[in-house]
């Protein structure tokens, strides 16, 4: 730790920490544009200039973003020289700015607006003609409103330092400088949309979040990305039960400040899916919408028929890597306590393409968020194991926790599942699997779930619902509990915090984990608690 002085007040801060970050920790805002804690400092915007004691009694102007805290440093954040510079920089940045806040999507989260309010001059002294460079389409997700750009180069540095793909550059010289891509080489790396998050002004915007409701209307929900086993921490922006935007939430041990485009925009697929609005039951070979009690009766009698005819091990249960630890744990209990000694499997769609960025940000090949957790909860065998069991006739009935809109069945799987005597499925839409089922319970998508998931590293993290499931659907834990009840088994409460407590007592590696301990940054399995592994 180091003791520093800011405007004649002493503070104790972490030695070696960046001055802007250290000041933020103390609740002191040093206005800045080009500095971003996830990128190397560049010092080009000049907004963060402050005064530092260079020799005893003598202060000099320095860029805060390049200062690393050392014991005894002495700063002036509010001297006339510092305040005058801020006012000057604000004026310079605004003289060529279009001042189009009324139709700019950044309004409300714009550093120019914020700093102008705090440090600007309130009127313009500029009577010359503004530069009006044209808007540019940079890639599949990103548009550049060139007039609004302040050339802080966060975006170019992101593509150089983080992705290593270097699609963006600054072309032309001096006041004509512009951010650009090269003809035929668009900004299409797998993390490209992060540039819109880090753009401090309204210059880089995602095409996805264009002309949408103003940012201050949204509810913000901290949760996880369901797109892959990395488990990026995210914040959803939600209005009237609809997600409008996903942004990465900082977690140094998992995703740093970033997330991939696939994950960022995956909410559309979930949100736009044709959701099941009521349970389904097979009647005369066709799935028909029925009431919940009707579906429960059908499920329970079907399962009991399999168990009665074929004995204890004839029912299999298949967990889901889309489901939470708690849901998979409740499924295990349901299987063990109501189905005798079922074969347990874990269903997962085929792998996608893995990618690791220059900075180490990892997109996992496993396109489901909770394979590790589901496996930990179920102690599950491979999907092939279940197929073999069906094939050799030892598995006659199956209870599947589905719910992955990306899951389709291969012809072998279709053949195998068709042979089952009785199939119960939780799902969110009429998937290939649901089409084969005898009873389908409409469950929840990841954005409607409350619980924990364990990412590929073994970090247990919390998932929070952006909104409840549709009125005819239920959270999967509640469905499991209901089925259990009907079969004479009490699965206890479905409050995830309570279930996690149970998991901590029963599942290897989860000992000691609690909701509070996991917090908003997660905690490692294996009893390490929150750790500081390297992130993206």
């Amino acid at each position, binding site marked *: 730790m180091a003791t520093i002085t800011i405007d004649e007040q002493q503070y104790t801060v972490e030695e070696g920490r960046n001055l802007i970050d250290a000041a933020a920790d103390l609740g002191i805002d040093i206005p800045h544009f080009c500095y971003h804690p996830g990128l190397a400092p560049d010092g080009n915007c000049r907004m963060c200039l402050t005064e530092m004691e260079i020799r005893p009694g003598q202060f000099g102007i320095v860029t805060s973003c390049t200062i690393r805290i050392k014991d005894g440093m002495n700063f002036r954040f509010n001297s006339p020289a510092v305040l005058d510079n801020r006012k000057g920089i604000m004026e310079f940045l605004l003289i060529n700015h279009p001042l189009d806040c009324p139709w700019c999507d950044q309004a409300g989260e714009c550093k120019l607006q914020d700093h102008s309010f705090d440090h600007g001059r309130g009127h313009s002294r500029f009577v010359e003609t503004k530069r009006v460079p044209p808007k540019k389409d940079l890639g599949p997700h990103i548009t550049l409103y060139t007039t609004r750009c302040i050339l802080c180069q966060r975006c170019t540095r992101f593509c150089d330092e983080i992705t290593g793909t*270097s699609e963006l550059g600054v072309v*032309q*010289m001096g006041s004509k400088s512009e951010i650009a891509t090269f*003809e*035929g080489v668009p900004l299409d790396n797998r993390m490209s949309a992060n540039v819109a998050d880090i753009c401090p002004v309204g210059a880089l915007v995602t095409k996805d979040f264009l002309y949408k409701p103003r940012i201050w209307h949204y509810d913000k929900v901290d949760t996880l990305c369901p797109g892959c086993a990395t488990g990026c921490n995210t914040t959803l922006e939600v209005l009237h039960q609809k997600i409008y935007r996903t942004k990465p939430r900082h977690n140094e041990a998992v995703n740093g400040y970033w997330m991939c485009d696939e994950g960022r925009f995956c909410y559309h697929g979930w949100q736009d899916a044709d959701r099941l609005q009521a349970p389904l039951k097979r009647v005369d070979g066709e799935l028909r919408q029925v009431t919940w009690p009707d579906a429960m009766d059908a499920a329970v009698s079907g399962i009991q028929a399999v168990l009665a005819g074929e004995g204890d091990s004839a029912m299999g249960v298949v967990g889901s890597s889309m489901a939470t630890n708690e849901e998979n744990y409740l499924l295990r209990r349901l299987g063990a306590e109501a189905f005798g000694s079922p074969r347990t499997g874990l269903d997962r769609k085929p792998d996608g393409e893995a990618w690791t960025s220059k900075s180490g940000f990892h997109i996992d090949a496993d396109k489901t968020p909770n394979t590790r957790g589901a496996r930990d909860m179920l102690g599950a065998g491979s999907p092939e194991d279940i197929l073999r069991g069906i094939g050799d006739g030892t598995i006659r009935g199956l209870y599947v926790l589905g719910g992955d809109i990306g899951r389709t069945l291969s012809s072998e799987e279709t053949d195998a599942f068709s042979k089952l005597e009785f199939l119960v499925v939780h799902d969110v839409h009429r998937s290939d699997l649901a089409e084969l089922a005898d009873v389908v319970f409409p469950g929840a998508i990841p954005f409607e779930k409350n619980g924990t998931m364990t990412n590929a590293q073994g970090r247990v993290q919390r998932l929070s619902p952006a909104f409840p499931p549709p009125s005819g659907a239920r959270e999967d834990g509640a469905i499991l509990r209901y089925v259990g009840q009907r079969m004479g088994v009490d699965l206890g409460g479905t409050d995830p915090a309570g279930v996690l407590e149970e998991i901590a007592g029963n599942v290897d590696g989860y000992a000691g984990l609690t909701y509070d301990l996991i917090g908003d940054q997660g905690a490692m399995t294996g009893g390490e608690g929150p750790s500081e592994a390297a992130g993206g």
Partner: protein
Amino acid sequence: MATPLEFTEAARERAAKILDRYPAEYRKSAVVPLLHLAQEEWGHVSPEAMACVARLIGCSPVKVAEIATFYPMFNREPVGEHVLAVCHTLPCALTGCGSVFDHLSEKLGIGLGETTADGRFTLRKSECLAACDRGPVLLVNRRLHTHVSPEKVDEILTELEKG
């Protein structure tokens, strides 16, 4: 983008010599000299030429575009056979570069940055060429003409027409 450009065999050899001047791990240092080479080859630095240089260095093409568009010496568009650049910075302005430029403009029938219809001449202004004691100065292709007057402009143009 149009067909990819490749250097001729002779230019590739020169490029290899240029690259040899820098440590092997810092090939990007050669970008400016290689862009000069590209301009010698093709007269201007098109996006295809930038891509060619980028392949040679092994970097993203936009990083070459950053350089090619920064420096005023690189022509982004085709230029005339002869590029005439009148220095217009203060010392030359004090010694009459304005009349030199106006005379050239009138003689050639083109304005600043333009090329004659026959593709022979491109007229430009240049910042200080560091020959202020001999102003006004005029850079014609690779050659610097000093103490230029409207009369001398006529001589230079006649010589170029002949050559």
